[in-house]
């Protein structure tokens, strides 16, 4: 009895080892990637403690004294409200505007009968998406430069405005400029995604609608839009999860880091960068970073939980 259990256990152990041995090559394949994830992603996560410390590189991060929530206190007494307002405000506008534009264009594209033209339009509207944001800021500069810009030299004189506007020092225009730039750069990308969904809709729905005498608009309203629901939810969910993040290039590079514009261009990402690289204020900068990571994480979980309730199959996890 006793020996039997021992041999049985030994056999099980052998099977266990063999089982893992069989998969050893597969595990080994994952080692380089795991190392990279560890270094690039997981070690920096532990760096969150920096936000609770008075960092002194001479004695090292580990030995630097803890100062509790001091960094956060300074942050929230200072610019926290402004950068949060800007980050969320712009993102809200993007979340609302982008799908409206993208879905309209996707539906129009789908209604076109000439295949070649359809293909051509698709190709062209994706071009801005492929260009680096640095080049985009040159494009914006060509339009807005006070001395040589296209607007000041060509467009404004058409309307009889002779004096030159200093775009890079007039904050009142920038919410509009930034939204326009983002739409210009991003609408092609969203359009392509919605268009793929529209193309994938079962043709028999449309045929049935036609038999019922539905007009073009009625088909869009009762067939196309309901079929897009799922994609809209997924994409919006993703953007809501990213609401505490902003495109650093758009808010730093496109306004050319111009001081007078800071009130309307400073977002959490640009604030973190300036604190870290320019003002040498690691405490506040890391506090803002942690604020972003934690709230961002909560947002993703919340958004996903809501979708889980409303329509299960569209949830991310």
């Amino acid at each position, binding site marked *: 009895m006793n020996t039997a259990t021992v041999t049985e256990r030994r056999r099980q152990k052998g099977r266990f080892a063999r089982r893992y041995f069989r998969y050893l090559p*597969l595990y080994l394949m994952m080692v*380089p990637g795991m190392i*990279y994830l560890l270094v690039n992603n997981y070690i920096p996560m532990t760096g969150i403690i920096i936000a609770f410390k008075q960092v002194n590189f001479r004695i090292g991060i580990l030995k630097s004294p803890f100062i509790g929530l001091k960094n956060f206190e300074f942050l929230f007494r200072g610019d926290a409200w402004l950068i949060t307002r800007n980050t969320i405000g712009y993102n809200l506008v993007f979340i609302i505007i982008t799908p409206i534009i993208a879905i309209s264009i996707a539906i129009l594209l789908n209604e*076109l009968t000439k295949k070649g033209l359809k293909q051509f339009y698709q190709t062209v509207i994706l071009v801005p998406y492929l260009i680096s944001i*640095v080049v985009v800021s040159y494009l914006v500069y060509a339009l807005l430069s006070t001395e040589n810009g296209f607007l000041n030299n*060509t467009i404004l004189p058409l309307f009889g405005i002779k004096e030159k506007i200093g775009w890079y020092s007039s904050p009142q225009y920038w919410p509009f400029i930034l939204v326009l730039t983002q739409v210009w750069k991003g609408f092609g990308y969203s359009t392509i995604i919605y268009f793929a969904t529209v193309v994938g809709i079962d043709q028999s729905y449309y045929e049935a609608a036609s038999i019922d005498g539905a007009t073009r608009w009625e088909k869009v309203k009762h067939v196309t839009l309901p079929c897009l629901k799922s994609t809209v939810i997924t994409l919006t969910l993703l953007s809501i999860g990213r609401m505490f993040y902003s495109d650093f290039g758009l808010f730093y590079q496109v306004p050319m880091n111009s001081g007078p514009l800071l009130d309307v261009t400073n977002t959490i990402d640009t604030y973190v960068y300036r604190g870290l690289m320019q003002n040498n204020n690691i405490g506040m900068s890391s506090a803002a*970073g942690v604020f972003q990571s934690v709230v961002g994480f909560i947002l993703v979980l919340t958004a996903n939980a809501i979708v889980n309730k409303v329509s299960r199959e569209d949830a991310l996890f």
Partner: protein
Amino acid sequence: MVENNKIFQIITNVIMIFLCSFCVFPFLILFSSSITSEMTLVREGYSVLPRDIDWSAYKFLLTGSDSIIRGYIITIAVSVIGTSMNLILTTLFAYPLSRRDLPHRNVFAFIVFFTMLFNGGIVPSYIMWSRYLHISNTYLALILPNLLMSAFYIIMMRTYFQSNIPDAVIEAGRIDGASEIVVLLKVVLPMSKPIIATIALLVGLHYWNDWTNGLYYINQDKYYSIQVLLNRMLQDVQYLMSSAASGNSSELAKDIPSVSLKMAVAVMGAIPVLCIYPFFQKYFVQGIVVGAVKG
């Protein structure tokens, strides 16, 4: 009814053409300005069509300064090496994850997925890469941080493997006595060319367009990639001139077409992508669609 449809088609085409010009028109200004003479630009500003043709900005870029050429070489090398390494890492990670029989594969999948939900932010990353791993002012700084592997592409590739490569095919390879790595190389990869092409293009695009790694980790001119150079020039028009005129008299600096030069450099930064893109449009579109829906 037919008449009605014709009108609708015309209106739709007009709208689409308008949108396309909206996309293209800033590039026209950029390009026209880069080939307009300095005098005209100063007098009349940047414009959609060139008022006169003058290639001196490009002549200067190609002969007066070696920064652009070097920037190009660095960008090309970094993009090629980075993309290859990324593909190797991604494939090696995605294949085991796609194997339904792998014990604990959900744990590994979660480790990958979690990096998409949460991150430590740029401050700890920056301190780690620059103070502890000392990659500042090396070519590694342009390759390693953030771009080398992304959870997004791992999940994309895993999904492709799972839905396009039947378990039976892998099983057959194993029964024939092929090792896992041979199965991956000889059976799985040849069946996965579309997804590899798609990911390669997207990753290559990221490397080509990346300027933030350069912004954080590089401040010596000799490591500037083309985007970092562009970024630097936007903030400091004098930069390229001072680097070109160093050693020479300031006479030379005076003749440099600074207004058109800016635009010429931007054209140089954008043109490779614009030239390559139309030929691979299918893969880009596929990558975006698959990534958004399944990633």
